[in-house]
């Protein structure tokens, strides 16, 4: 029965990676660069929830599902605005510069957010306990115990994935996102305001990151300004593993990485090497599929 526990843990962890990876891959799709500040947006999402929880707690009974829902939605909206603002201020002025310039700027933005937030006048560097947002409840299955939030994480992720799929495949703005990802100039000739599509993409990705940040914080010992780095890095790797620019790929990569990590960590005797084992497997996969699991090798057709 131990494997079931591991499976649920792995799915929960992997779901969080998947949500974050979607943001990396969406931005890469339309702008062809890695937004390294994405991992900090997820941290800001967790902090937004941290500060909102007591506020919402004064209106609604604490640890209610409705309250948690409101906290998550408001935090996602705040982070969407932050994501849009980052693109507007830091990346848009560099739109026609070499991609390396933008990439370095993204690292700069990331460091700026991290160390500003570490300042005592902002959040401070210390780790703070994250409030419980939903009532505590454990499911007992034989001799294993499953916390309700561990079950919730994959469910929320699945719902968000379905929603995102609908937006991208079935709405006009989603179609415009796909068109811009393929050829921004041609999309502009159709009347698409590319800047608006890019802002929308950043907003959407950042909202997902915020939700992922909150889910991550619910399972973590506490939150602090550098908390985004580890999951962010893993999610980036998950996006590459799935095939960067490919949305189902990011979800698959995230889930796979979460499961690999959790199962490798559960093997007695070698659990200290869990990251090593997980990443060795990743390198192995990428050796045989360099474009990622679902990525296509792009051939230019003249």
């Amino acid at each position, binding site marked *: 029965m131990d494997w079931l526990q591991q499976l649920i843990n792995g799915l929960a962890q992997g779901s969080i990676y998947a949500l974050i990876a979607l943001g990396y891959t969406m931005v890469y799709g339309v702008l062809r660069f890695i937004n390294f500040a994405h991992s900090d947006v997820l941290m800001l999402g967790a902090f937004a929830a941290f500060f909102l929880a007591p506020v919402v707690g004064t209106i609604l009974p604490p640890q209610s599902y409705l309250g948690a829902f409101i906290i998550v939605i408001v935090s996602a909206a705040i982070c969407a605005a932050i994501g849009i603002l980052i693109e507007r201020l830091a990346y848009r002025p560099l739109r026609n510069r070499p991609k390396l310039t933008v990439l370095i700027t993204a690292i700069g933005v990331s460091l700026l957010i991290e160390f500003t937030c570490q300042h005592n006048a902002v959040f401070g560097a210390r780790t703070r306990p994250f409030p419980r947002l939903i009532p505590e409840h454990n499911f007992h299955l034989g001799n294993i115990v499953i916390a309700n939030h561990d079950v919730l994480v994959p469910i929320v992720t699945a719902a968000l994935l379905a929603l995102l799929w609908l937006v991208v495949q079935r709405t*006009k703005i989603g*179609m*415009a996102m*796909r*068109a811009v*990802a*393929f*050829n921004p*100039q*041609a*999309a*502009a*000739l*159709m*009347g*698409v*305001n*590319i800047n608006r599509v890019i802002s929308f993409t950043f907003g959407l990705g950042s909202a997902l990151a915020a939700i992922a940040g909150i889910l991550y914080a619910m399972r973590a010992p506490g939150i602090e300004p550098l908390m985004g780095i580890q999951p962010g890095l893993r999610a980036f790797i998950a996006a590459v593993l799935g095939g960067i620019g490919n949305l189902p790929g990011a979800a698959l990569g995230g889930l796979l990485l979460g499961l690999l990590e959790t199962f490798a960590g559960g093997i007695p005797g070698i659990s200290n090497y869990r990251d090593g084992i997980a990443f060795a497997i990743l390198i192995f996969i990428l050796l045989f599929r360099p474009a990622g699991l679902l990525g296509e090798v792009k051939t230019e*057709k*003249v």
Partner: protein
Amino acid sequence: MLEIKNLVVNYGVITALQEISLSVPAGAIVTLIGANGAGKTTTLRAVSGLLKARTGEVIYEGRKITNLPPHELVKLGIAHVPEGRMVFANLTVLENLRMGAYLMKDRAAVNRELSYVFDVFPRLKEREKQIAGTLSGGEQQMLAIGRALMSKPKFLMLDEPSLGIAPLLVQKIFEKIVEINRDHKITVLLVEQNANLALDVSSYGYVLETGRIILADTSASLRANPQVKSAYLGGS
């Protein structure tokens, strides 16, 4: 309908267009011919806002549109079928066509345009659900033109519609261009390397050479012009 006055476009230090002027009267098919690298594509890209003009003016229906962003020009009824077709290879044929009508809010109007495009190019109807990247070159060209028609343009710019397409299909596509112009009063500015075809379907032509317009005349006169004959119509 469209007037270009002393347009200058640079690529860095290289001047691609040196003060070119041309005009396209409403309802006409006007062609711009010239060799590779003469500046034909640059001209169209400058009109549709994909490139910035350094100096000069583009006037459309009496209004100055120089350096407006491309998505603003679509609103004014300008459609540009770019060089290399640039269909969205990752989208289906139908989605490509719907992208063409991106700014249209009225669903019924979109469906009207859709049935018109399917009338002009029945092949596209057959391939409606197919991913555009799997179409043949000729079909992609039909899709690119169909997609441009979806915006219900008044002014259509076509960049090398014959490029990389089987000769039989080229003939057919040019027939369609004439049909679109005649039946729907869509003014056409046609850029072509295949001067023979271009002068056949157009009423007026400009010859572009290394960023300058060296000749401008009715298409019939250009066909008879010995200079054009030897340089662009394959001698004799």
